[in-house]
């Protein structure tokens, strides 16, 4: 079923129509084969991002002045949800890419916006977001990748270390990297935009994951990578604050993607339940099964409402950190439950690779883990609720 959407403008309606058309013509016909192939032999659908980029879907939540679409999060996220309902890996990629432009767009100088942001928002480029490390996941303050001044007149830096779980690694045009510039714990982090062609930048082998195979994830290894001084975004020591603020927005991207994934699992289950005959009638005629479908619909509708509430707070310039964490928690848990139930509705067929239910189930699992585990979301939420 096509999701019912309240949108704030005519162009937003047209944008959703455009997204659906691209999903139907370019994404849905390819997703099954591409994910199955990438599970065996890593491959990244860079050409799909070219199509999205040309259509202007890789820069929606940023200012038109710098090449963005000037769209509120309320609209941008519903585009991400639509993409996720067709191809989850690509929706995650769109969310990640959008996040990579966040530091320059929010704290960059006008010169940096001209030099870096216009390219990031052009639709031609794809970014990677480098925060986690092998020993610094949820505890980002413990990161050890370090930038040291190279002593040159241009205030250049040299970065050494490694980042883990990096989407688009090896395919990205630039790497928005959070690294240590002093030993002052969480206050000692800074943000750099490292060009993909930088000397000394190499990548580990693609991770062998449970799902989201077309989201290529690798280690990024900085082996004495030189970075110009004008690629330091914000001030020295501002990195942690930038990363945490960016994560609030990134969580909404993942929440929206998880909602789209849940919607497609629900659609699959509902359509199967109406077609599958047992005891001379569709299995949907059994109330026990129909009520499962009802619970799935309620979960998807609730998830959508949760991320849109947080998005509208953000668009209004209000605090939304707690609501973003709530949305990430609700939407990804909904995706896990709905995809699990979708397999149940499809029965034995759902357990086979002949239907996409088992793929969606595998894709849902990671949404409870990345962009802050759902335990971290509960930490964020409880601190907000219990403070003072």
């Amino acid at each position: 079923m096509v999701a019912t959407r309240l949108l704030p403008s005519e162009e937003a309606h047209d944008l959703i129509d455009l997204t659906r058309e691209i999903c139907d013509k370019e994404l849905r016909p390819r997703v099954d084969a591409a994910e199955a192939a990438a599970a065996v032999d890593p491959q990244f659908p860079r050409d799909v991002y070219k199509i999205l980029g040309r259509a202007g879907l890789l820069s929606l939540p940023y200012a038109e002045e710098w090449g963005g679409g000037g769209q509120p999060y309320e609209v941008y996220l519903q585009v991400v949800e639509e993409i996720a309902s067709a191809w989850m890996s690509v929706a995650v990629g769109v969310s990640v890419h959008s996040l990579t432009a966040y530091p320059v767009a929010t704290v960059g100088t006008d010169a940096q916006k001209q030099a870096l942001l216009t390219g990031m928002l052009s639709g031609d480029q794809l970014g990677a977001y480098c925060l986690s490390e092998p020993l610094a996941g949820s505890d980002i303050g413990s990161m050890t990748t370090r930038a040291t001044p190279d002593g040159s007149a241009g205030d250049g830096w040299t970065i050494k270390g490694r980042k883990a779980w990096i989407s688009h690694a090896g395919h990205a045009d630039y790497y928005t990297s959070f690294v240590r510039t002093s030993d002052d714990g969480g206050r000692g982090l800074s943000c750099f935009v490292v060009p993909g062609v930088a000397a000394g930048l190499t990548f580990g082998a693609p991770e062998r994951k449970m799902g989201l195979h077309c989201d290529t994830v690798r280690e990024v290894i900085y082996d004495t990578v030189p970075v110009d001084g004008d690629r330091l975004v914000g001030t020295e020591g501002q990195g942690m604050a930038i990363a945490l603020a960016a994560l609030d927005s990134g969580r909404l991207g993942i929440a929206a993607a998880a909602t789209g994934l849940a919607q497609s699992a629900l659609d699959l289950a509902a359509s199967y339940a109406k077609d599958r005959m047992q005891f001379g009638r569709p299995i949907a005629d059994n109330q026990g099964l129909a009520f499962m479908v009802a619970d799935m619909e309620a979960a998807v509708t609730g998830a959508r409402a949760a991320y849109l509430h947080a998005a509208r707070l953000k668009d209004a310039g209000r605090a939304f950190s707690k609501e973003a964490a709530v949305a990430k928690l609700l939407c990804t848990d909904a995706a896990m439950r709905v995809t699990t139930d979708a397999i149940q509705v499809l029965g034995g067929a759902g357990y086979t690779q002949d239907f996409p239910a088992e793929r969606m189930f595998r894709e849902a699992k990671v949404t409870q883990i990345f962009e802050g585990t759902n335990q971290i979301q509960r930490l964020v939420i409880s601190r907000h609720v219990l403070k003072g």
Partner: protein
Amino acid sequence: MNIVVCVKYVPDAQSDRTFNESDNTTDRVGVDGLLSELDEYAVEEALKLVEAGEGEVTVVTVGPDQAADALKKALQMGADKAVHVKDDAIHGSDAVATSLVLAEAIKKIGSPDLVITGMASTDGTMSVVPAMLAERLGLPQVTFASELSIDGSTVTIRRDGDAASETIVATLPALVSVTDQINEPRFPSFKGIMAAKKKPVEEWALADLGVDASQVGLEAAWSKVESFTKRPPREQGQIVTDDGDGGTKLAEFLYAQKFV
């Protein structure tokens, strides 16, 4: 080079398509509609020609209020301006009347160097409007183009037939209908969506074109749908029980149906 592209708003083939019970015409109001996919190729070809040189692309449609969506899509793809001919009297028009209205609209738009149409609409699929329109405009008609090139004052197309491919040359101005082999229509972009909102869309009635209402509509149509019957639901196929001779029975079935 100034190009006029004729486009049509058609019921979405993905949805249920129906006829009006009252007059047996296609229901265009109560169903989801869109720019005929075959017309996207015409729009794309026009945009490519203008982008390679200069001039502008005007899209024109004849249809009810909802047909504005077809024009909007063409404008979002990159067409420069649009003309929407709408008039209650046009309802039920056949291809003869449609070609008359389109011809008068194109004359009013100006004298384009090229008129491009799709090879057919995806609803009526008659393919006759391009030929009728060329006749009314006094233009050479070069139809079913799977390739198109312009050189000075001539247009050259390739038309792929069952037995041979023809190369056909005509002098400009001319009318060309294009097939779905000629190009890969672009998606609109979000910038295109925003730009389309500011592009001019003119709305003309029959009176603006000097066409008398008696020349169009269901009453003037040369042919009418007398009645229609819904396609019967698909019947269950024949089930053969395999008692060890399934292969033979299958072969017998295929032979009886003249498949082998």
